[in-house]
Every structure is written in structure tokens, then in C-alpha cells.
């Protein structure tokens, strides 16, 4: 590799940076600094240049200061001692005459992530909050949030909070919004920033001055305010009216949400709002910014769920054009399905029909299912279209159509005849499992209406040996027995052959058992078989169930303009459900700062981190570890849990996972180290794989003083850089769980830090 070697490059740069001639020429000086940054960006180790770089930051040139700040922030955590050097010069910069420099210095200081920085931060921040330049105030306000986040466990300073609240009256709009954001983060534990009447009214008055991000966020904060009276409510709505037509889609959506939520008791106001945002939403839906268009379409679908006819007259806006990306086409098809009515059904179906032959198979099938969806209301036209598609003899199209037919025959019995007439001939084109199953089901259930049904099924029976999908074989058995009841003469022989094959030759157990079952059922007499198999052939009521009945607006008003709408409710529920103890994630920096605290002084020792704490003071030690979460109360794990491996296994299997998380991990796990470390905090090891085993597993248990059990599994897959942790709890105590997890996490992270 033609690489010069980091050392040499560093030495050269050091020489350049400390050369008085270079320092005298601003352009050359900055060139040298720039080279350091480049090197750092490429991943080289330039930490050795720290003192020179800090010195380079003490020039009047703002651009150079920025570069240095960039360097310092990246390097400070590696060199906490030297970072103090930087702190000094940064503090000096905080009193610089130029506001740009003051602001930069504040931001840099708040960005240093090293232990003990808080004490140096406090004073400059307080000064920054009172600075005459708003640029500095903006940085200072968010700096407060960063500082509080850094210290994590300490009590929130009441004076600071008050200062921030008073800054809500600042002249500068961005300072106001930043204050809201900072307060929200600082007061997270108490439920965020309080929006009372004076604050709400103040914010309402400031709205016109804010930029689009500010407006959008303030509108979201205002959701928290509950107007006292009807008059006040309508005053607010009137004031905010203009934002429903803002040029920024995000402001429009935020305003819509606020309106819907505030007017939750006035359905007609809500309806009116939805009519008024129709225009802006439609223009977002047809805008060239595709991602925004996608977001808007998701929201349109949400609205349609409550007001099915809402966009009907604009149905043409939702026609897909050829060059649009896949995700927009899919959304548009869904929208089209929902806004069909008597007037536009013809055009919409024509349009959907043209998508059915799209090059993308996925899209084509989507379009077919969309038509099938409309068929529940407009049966005849849709069945006509679907039948026509069968004529193309395309594998994926025929398969999708037959599947659609099966569902239709079940939901709308009136179309059975039409479906049955269309079926002959399909069997040659269908290749996939789903399609075959659907076809076989139709032939079996409605065989008496399809003249050649037995012959088609006979082909299937002939080829059953080469059939790859067991599900098709099962379906074939059921269908043939059904058809046998309707047309015994034609089917008896092949049913015999099929049963023989299934029982004697089939490898798949499920198919064999199904075969045996039908064989024995047939032995008990035809009447009995009829009683078992001849269930109803359709169930229209299922369609009504499946149809989403009209949701009231209030059911989704709170989800509007959040990711829940974009992902879809079900998926969002899934995503958010995986985060049962979300706070423990956002608290991770506290755990980390704690981690670095203990770690830095003992860089060459290994286990001392945990062993310095005396074994006898267990409960205190726990608190020590757990004080990270002051709100969590005290969790004390009792030192001896008598849990045998069998008991553990039994309990483990009977419980659901209460929390799952993954921690970064590199290299193998040293079982002894972990075991020792965990014993210190009274987490006991039940079983553990050997060091180096792949995958590596361990089972741990612990019990707190109230008798609540915590069972844990650690799993490290081969070649995985993450340690999967799953915790189960025999009593639902979220707070205790959180404490336990943070304790566990701290220990594991400490061990991880020692080992790698």
C-alpha cells in the first residue's frame, strides 16, 4: 500500500502547524488545518496533534475556528486531559466580540463528550442565555438540553428551567422554538414542557414570525393545550386558519392534526377542516417531490377510511403515470379502490385494468387484487374484466385472478356462476402453489357447476408424484372428496388412487395424515362424510367483517401526521411494541458516561472496575450502579437466589419476553469475567456456554427484595457483533425491569470495554 504511515504524516503536519512562518500566513495555516481534517476524515489517527490544533483554534479566522472545533469534538473523548486545554481556549472564545465565534464556541463545548465537562459548561451557558446576539442564545438554549442529557442522573436545575421558560418570550423566533425543544427534553421525566394559557397564547401570536420548521413544531406542541371554553377554542382555530393553506406540506399537516384534535367534540368542524385541506393535500399528492407525495397519499388513505367519498370527484388525480416509482403506484391503487362510486367506477376500472398488464409482476397482481376488491360492490363489471385477463394466459396474471375468484366466490355467492364459467383452461397456465390451491379449491367446492372439473382434478392426481407443494396436495385431497360427494361416478376411481398414493407413498406427514383421515372418514359412511364436509360454500358476512367499517375521525386524529399513518397502523403497533422499555434506550448515554467514568482510570487493569466495590455492601453497590436512574426507585437484588436449572427452565418457558435489546460486542466472550462481574451485582449464572463456543449463550437469574424474578438470556451469534439480551420477568413491574436492565447493561458494557 502506498500509504506513508500515520506517524510520518502526523509528524509532518505537526511541523507545519508549529512553524511560525506558516502561522503567520493565514492561508497556509488554514491549509495545514484542513489537511489534518482530511486525514481524520479518512480514518487516520491524528489525536497526537491535539495541542497544536487547539492552538490553531486561537486565531481570528472564523473558518479555521470551525475546522478546529470539528477536530476537537471528534477527538476530545480520546484525550480527556488534553481536552481541558481546549475548554480553556473555548471559554475565552465565549467572550469574543463576534457572535458567530461565541455561538460556535458554545456549540463546541456542549459537543465535547467527556466526563466532568458540566462544571465548565454551566457559566458560559448562563451567559449565553443572556447574550445580546440571538445567534448565541439559540446555541445556548439547545446547549442546556445537551448538558442536562450529559449529566443524566442529576437533579434538573430549577433555575435553569425557569430561565428557559422566560426565554420563551425572546424576540428571536428560533430561540423561542429552541426553548420549547430544550424544555421538552429536560423535563421529559415530568411529561415535557407545560403549555398553559399564557404560553399558548404567546405562541399563537408568534406563529407568523416562525419559519416552517418552527411553525410545524409549535403546532405539535399546541396539541397539549386544552382550551378552557368554546369561545377560546374557536378563537384559536380562527387564528390558525391560514396555516391550513401554508406553502409547506408539513405545516399543513401539523395544522390539520391540531384542528382535528382540538375540535374532537365538533364533528362538523372536523369535516369542514378536511374539506379545506383537500386542495393542499391534492397538490402534495401530485407534486414532483415523490417522497412528499408518498406521505400525502398515506394521509389521504387515512382520511378516506372515515370519509369514503371525500376525494371521489378528484379520482383522476390518483391515476398512475408510467414513470412514477413503485411505492407511489401501490399507494395510488389503494386510494383508487377506496374512492370508487357509481359515477366513476367505469373509469377507475378501465384504469386499473391497464395496470393489470404492467411489466412488474408485483404491481400487476396488486392491480388484480384491487379490481377484486372493487368486485365486492360492483361484481359484474369486475368479474368481466378479470375473466378477460385470463385470456392473456400469463402465469402470474392467471394465478392472481384465480386467487381473486376464490375469495369472490366465498364472499359474493351471486358471482359463482360467472366464475365457474371462466375457469376452464386456467389449469395449464398456473404454476405457483397459491394459484393451484385456489383453483383446486374452486373445482372441489363448485365442481357440480363445472363440467370438466373431474378431468382437471384427474390431471392433478396423475401428476401428484411430481407435485412439489404439500399444501396443494392437501387441498387436492379435500377437493376430491368434496367432488366425490357431488359427482361420485366420475370421481370414485381417482379418489381411490389418490388415497392410495397418499397413504402408501407420500413422504410428507401432514399429507399422509390428511389422507388417512379421509380414508377413515369414508369408511364411516357417505352420510357421515356429507355431514362433515358439506359446510356452506360461501359466507358473505365475512366480507362485511373484513371491510373496514367507517372509522370515526377521532380514532385516528392523534395518529395523523405521525409515522403511524405512514407505516400503517398495524406495522407501527408492531414497531413500537418492540420498545417496551423505551426510556432505557434514550438513557443509554447516562449509562455510558457512567461507563467511561469507571473505565478511564483503570485502563490497564481488567476486572478492577467491578472488584473495587466491596462484596459485602451489596445493596449499596447496587444503588451505586443504579443511581443512573434516579426516578427508578431502589432496586435491590437479593444476594442468594435458590433457583435450580430445572426451575429456571420451567419458569423461562412459561413467561413472555418483557424486553429485548442488543449491545455492541466484539470478539469472543470470556465466561469467567462475565460471571464474576455479574455476581458482584447479584445476577446469578444458571448456565453458560464455554468461551469461544458459537453461538455463545448464557442464562442468568436474579431476584429483587419483593420476590420478583428476572430471567435473562444472552446470545451471541457467530460473526455477529451484537449481543442479544432478552429479559423475562415473573411480575409486571416496568420500573424494576428498567433498573434491572440498566444494571445489566452497565455491567455488560463494562465487560465489553475490558475485553475488546
Amino acid at each position: 500500500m502506498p500509504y506513508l504511515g500515520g506517524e510520518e504524516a502526523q509528524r509532518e503536519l505537526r511541523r507545519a502547524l508549529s512553524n511560525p512562518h506558516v502561522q503567520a500566513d493565514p492561508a497556509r495555516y488554514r491549509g495545514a488545518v484542513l489537511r489534518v481534517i482530511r486525514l481524520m476524515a479518512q480514518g487516520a489517527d491524528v489525536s497526537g496533534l491535539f495541542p497544536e490544533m487547539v492552538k490553531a483554534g486561537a486565531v481570528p479566522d472564523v473558518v479555521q475556528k470551525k475546522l478546529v472545533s470539528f477536530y476537537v469534538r471528534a477527538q476530545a473523548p480520546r484525550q480527556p486531559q488534553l481536552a481541558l486545554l481546549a475548554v480553556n481556549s473555548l471559554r475565552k472564545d465565549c467572550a469574543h466580540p463576534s457572535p458567530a465565534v461565541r455561538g460556535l464556541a458554545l456549540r463546541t463545548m456542549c459537543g465535547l463528550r467527556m466526563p466532568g465537562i458540566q462544571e465548565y459548561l454551566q457559566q458560559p451557558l448562563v451567559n449565553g442565555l443572556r447574550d445580546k446576539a440571538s445567534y448565541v442564545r439559540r446555541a445556548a438554549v439547545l446547549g442546556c438540553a445537551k448538558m442536562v442529557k450529559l449529566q443524566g442522573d442529576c437533579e434538573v436545575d430549577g433555575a435553569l428551567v425557569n430561565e428557559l421558560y422566560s426565554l420563551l418570550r425572546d424576540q428571536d423566533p428560533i430561540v423561542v422554538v429552541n426553548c420549547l425543544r430544550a424544555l421538552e427534553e429536560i423535563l421529559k421525566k415530568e411529561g415535557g414542557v407545560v403549555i398553559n394559557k399564557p404560553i399558548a397564547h404567546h405562541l399563537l401570536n408568534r406563529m407568523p414570525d416562525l419559519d416552517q420548521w418552527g411553525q410545524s413544531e409549535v403546532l405539535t406542541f399546541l396539541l397539549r393545550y386544552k382550551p378552557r371554553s368554546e369561545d377560546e377554542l374557536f378563537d384559536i382555530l380562527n387564528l390558525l386558519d391560514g396555516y391550513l393553506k401554508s406553502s409547506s406540506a408539513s405545516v399543513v399537516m401539523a395544522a390539520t392534526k391540531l384542528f382535528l384534535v382540538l375540535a374532537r367534540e365538533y364533528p362538523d368542524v372536523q369535516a369542514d377542516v378536511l374539506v379545506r385541506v383537500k386542495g393542499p393535500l391534492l397538490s402534495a399528492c401530485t407534486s414532483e417531490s415523490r417522497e412528499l407525495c408518498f406521505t400525502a397519499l398515506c394521509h389521504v388513505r387515512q382520511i378516506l377510511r372515515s370519509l369514503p367519498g371525500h376525494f371521489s370527484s378528484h379520482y383522476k388525480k390518483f391515476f398512475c403515470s408510467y414513470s412514477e416509482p413503485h411505492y407511489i403506484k401501490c399507494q395510488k391503487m389503494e386510494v383508487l379502490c377506496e374512492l370508487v362510486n357509481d359515477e366513476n367506477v367505469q373509469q377507475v376500472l378501465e384504469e386499473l385494468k391497464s395496470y393489470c398488464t404492467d411489466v412488474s409482476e408485483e404491481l400487476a397482481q396488486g392491480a388484480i387484487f384491487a379490481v377484486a376488491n372493487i368486485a365486492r360492490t360492483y361484481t359484474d363489471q369486475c368479474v368481466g374484466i378479470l375473466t378477460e385477463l385470463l385470456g392473456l394466459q400469463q402465469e402470474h396474471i392467471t394465478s392472481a385472478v384465480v386467487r381473486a375468484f376464490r375469495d369472490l366466490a366465498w364472499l359474493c355467492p351471486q358471482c359463482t356462476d360467472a366464475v365457474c364459467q371462466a375457469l376452464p383452461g386456467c389449469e395449464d397456465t398456473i404454476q405457483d402453489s397459491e394459484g393451484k390451491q385456489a383453483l383446486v379449491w374452486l373445482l372441489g367446492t363448485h365442481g357440480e357447476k363445472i363440467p370438466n372439473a373431474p378431468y382437471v382434478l384427474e390431471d392433478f392426481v396423475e401428476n401428484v408424484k411430481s407435485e412439489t407443494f404439500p399444501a396443494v396436495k392437501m387441498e387436492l385431497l379435500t377437493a376430491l372428496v368434496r367432488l366425490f360427494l357431488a359427482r361420485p361416478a366420475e370421481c370414485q376411481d381417482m379418489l381411490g388412487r389418490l388415497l392410495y398414493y397418499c397413504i402408501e407413498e407420500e413422504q410428507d406427514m401432514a399429507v399422509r395424515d390428511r389422507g388417512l383421515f379421509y380414508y377413515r372418514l369414508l369408511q364411516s359412511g357417505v352420510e357421515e362424510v356429507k355431514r362433515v364436509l358439506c359446510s356452506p360454500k360461501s359466507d358473505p358476512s365475512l366480507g362485511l367483517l373484513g371491510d373496514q367499517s367507517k372509522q370515526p375521525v377521532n380514532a385516528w386524529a392523534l395518529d395523523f401526521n405521525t409515522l403511524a399513518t405512514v407505516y400503517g397502523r398495524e406495522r407501527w403497533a408492531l414497531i413500537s411494541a418492540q420498545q417496551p422499555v423505551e426510556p432505557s434506550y434514550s438513557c443509554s448515554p447516562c449509562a455510558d458516561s457512567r461507563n467511561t467514568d469507571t473505565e478511564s482510570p483503570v485502563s490497564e487493569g481488567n476486572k478492577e472496575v467491578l472488584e473495587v466495590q466491596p462484596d459485602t455492601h451489596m445493596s449499596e453497590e447496587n444503588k451505586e450502579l443504579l443511581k443512573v436512574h434516579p426516578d427508578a426507585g431502589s432496586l435491590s437484588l437479593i444476594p442468594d437466589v435458590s433457583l435450580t436449572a430445572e426451575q429456571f427452565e420451567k419458569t423461562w418457558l412459561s413467561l413472555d419476553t418483557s424486553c429485548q435489546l442488543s449491545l455492541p460486542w466484539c470478539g469472543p466472550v470470556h465466561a469467567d469475567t462475565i460471571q464474576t462481574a455479574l455476581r458482584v451485582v447479584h445476577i446469578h449464572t444458571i448456565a453458560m456456554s464455554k468461551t469461544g463456543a458459537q453461538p455463545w449463550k448464557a442464562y442468568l437469574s436474579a431476584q429483587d427484595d419483593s420476590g420478583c424474578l428476572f430471567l435473562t438470556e444472552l446470545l451471541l451469534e457467530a460473526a455477529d457483533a451484537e449481543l442479544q439480551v432478552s429479559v423475562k420477568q415473573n411480575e409486571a413491574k416496568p420500573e424494576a425491569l428498567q433498573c434491572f436492565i440498566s444494571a445489566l447493561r452497565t455491567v455488560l458494557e463494562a465487560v465489553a470495554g475490558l475485553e475488546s
Partner: protein
Amino acid sequence: MIGGLFIYNHKGEVLISRVYRDDIGTANTLHCGDSESRCKTPILKQSSLEVTCNWKASGDPNPPGALSLPSKVCRVWRRNAVDAFRVNVIHARQQVRSPVTNIARTSFFHVKRSNIWLAAVTKQNVNAAMVFEFLYKMCDVMTAYFGKISEENIKNNFVLIYELLDEILDFGYPQNSETGALKTFITQQGIKSQTKEEQSQITSQVTGQIGWRREGIKYRRNELFLDVLESVNLLMSPQGQVLSAHVSGRVVMKSYLSGMPECKFGMNDKIVIEKQGKGTADETGKSGKQSIAIDDCTFHQCVRLSKFDSERSISFIPPDGEFELMRYRTTKDIILPFRVIPLVREVGRTKLEVKVVIKSNFKPSLLAQKIEVRIPTPLNTSGVQVICMKGKAKYKASENAIVWKIKRMAGMKESQISAEIELLPTNDKKKWARPPISMNFEVPFAPSGLKVRYLKVFEPKLNYSDHDVIKWVRYIGRSGIYETRC
């Protein structure tokens, strides 16, 4: 709130990465396994600021690529969300399913510009529209600073981009993002240190009541430029029936005006004209034709909405430099600059005859430019013979299309192309889906019919009047998605 921002190239290499929040990429560990130093310690954990450039030395003449990644000194471990995005989205086989992707409980909002991916990452339940708008804004700002967003430009300007990212996002919250205002903070590599005057500007600009304009702007020549930029979208059936058509337009203003000017903008909006033209019946009849119905319009923050609602007048104090005054959409009475008449005939199983006529439908004195007609061909095309009356036509096998380019074309003209497409015989029974014929062009008028009637400037404090301001108006109509099915 945004947890982090990443810029990838088309290979999925991270060009720029800026992490604002700890919850993003929790597995980010920067390891330093320096062989010289005694201990191996994991050092930077969840740094609030991370720097990475993955570009290699391959033929890049510029210094960023001059050194290749040293394997020994430092290695960045990032088996985390950032990589997950590469695997799941950039390298994914199938088409992008959604512009918002959730990987490991982290939402990735991504936007693609040429072959560069911009992704904003967050773990919070955020407002999707806002994140996308922010990304667009980010692209605008970058374009304003260094032109086209391309891999090379990003590599060459990486310091500037980090500087910008530092300024427009703080702790993951969008801050000031107006290009004009940003330019006072970020001098594009400008060597000059700030003068006293500029420093005071920074102070006054943000202490003033109007966030988008600073005080004390002076120009020797007061000038303003108005651009009416429209994109016309059409979907037409083979029979020539308009399935859907709309124009989305923007009025972009570049103002170089001194002081705090008060501007008033007038256009041929139907509602306004009807309000004013209540005089004689003759007048309304005449103006009725020329006025247009705007379906929906939105304005820049500086426009006083209350005045617009009550009097439908658009008055504002403009930001300095370029900004988007208004954005609108019309669907009625659109002048479709071109008609495409396709004729496709299948001659047997191995031949296809295509004839396409385009007709320009505007004043003969005007010239349309950059006309491009794209006629799709079946996948099993073996050869194409093209004859066209005007311009150049070529069959591009890689794009499965005949591309017909005409540099200029006057109004009320007609041009024709005919092509014989030979097909390979295939067993595939699949019918050719016949994608629509699409068109690109640029015309010097507004297809919606919008006209700027006046733009008046008043500056009460400084003594220049409306007449002293030099005003330029330009109309550009471009094709959006302009498709005719065949």
C-alpha cells in the same frame, strides 16, 4: 427531530455522516487498535460527531483521495443501522418499497438525487412531511453553494457540508435554513475575516422582527427578477382524450432591493379580476378569457396571508436574493403545448410499425426547446429503422426506446417520425404492455395561462420609487410527466 444524517454514493459508501443523537447507531464504536500504544481500548463511543469518508484513491485527482484507508491505524466499526440501510435499501434487489424504511426500530427517510442518497435517521415518531421537506431544503442549500449534487462535488466540499450541517441542524433540530441568511454565517471558504459591519449584521439580522430579511441592505441598482416556472403534466389516452392534466407552478423571485421594500404582486387570477372588473359587461367578458382559475396556491412565509384572504392581494417584504414567492396548481384550461398522436401497427409477429406525429400548439412566434420524444420498444426488438422529418432519432437498446430529439420547434407546426421495429420471434406469450410515449420540452410561456400583471415596489424610507426598479419577468414551461398512451 433528526438523529443523524448520512449521504451515500450509489455503491452505498458513506460520504458524509453526521450523528446528532446518541440513540442512532448505538453500535457505533470507533476502535483504535494502534499497535504502538500499549493498550487496546475502545475509545469513542457514540461520539456526537463522527467523521468518515470512504472514498478510495481510485483516480481521484483531488487531495481527499490521495491517501487510501490505513488498515492498521484505525478502523471504523459500523455494523449498525448505517450498514443496514445500505443492505436493505441501496443494494436491495427489488424496487424501493417506501421512502421511509424501518430497520431495527430506526426510521430511515431517504431521498435520491442523481445517484446520491441522502438519508435522515431517527428513532422518534416524527412528522414525515417535515423530515422530507428538510431533506429537500438541504439539497437546495447544497445546490446553492456548490451546484449539482454529485459524488465529486460532495467529496470536494465535504468541509463545507459539515459546516452547513452544523449550522442548519443543532442537536437534530432544524435551525435557520434560508440560504440568504446562511451566507452571512458560512462564507464559502472565504478567507477574509469578518468585518465589523458584517458582525453587526449577524446581530441585527436576527434581532430584527423579520426573520427572513436583514436591515441595512443597499444596492446601487435596484433590480428584481421574476420567474414563472411551470411544469405541465399530462396523461392522454390513445384516442387523444385527456385523462388527467395539471400544471404545478412556482413563482420564483430574485430581489436585489435596498432597504425594507414593500412589494405587491398581481396576476390574472380569476377571482381578483372578477372582483375588479365589475364595471362593464364587456370588460368582464374580455378579461374572463384571460384570467385563470387557480385550484390551490401557497405562499412564502413573507406574504401576508390575512390580506390575501380578505382582498386576494399578495403583498410582502421579500427576502434578499432568491426565494420562492408562491406555488400553485391549476387544472382547468391548460394550454397543452404539444399533442402526440401515436399509431402502432403490428405486422405479423415479428414486425411493428410505429408512426408518431407531434403537433405544437402555441403561437407561431414562440419557439419550444429541448424537445425529446421517447417511444418505447418491446424487449425483443432486434433492429429498428427510423425516418424522421426533423431533428435526430436514435434507437437506444439499453433503454428499450427510440429517442427522438429536436432542438427547436416553432408553434403551430407538425413533425412526424416513423419507425419499423423488427422483433425476434419468442415463445413468450406475454403481450407487450406498451408503455406510454413520454415527452420532454421547454416552452417560453406559462401553460397554465398565468400572467404577471404587475409587481409594485414601495420603499417609504429610502428615496427610490417603483419606476426606478428594473424588473424582469420570464416564463418557462417545462414538461413534468407528459405521457400519451399508445
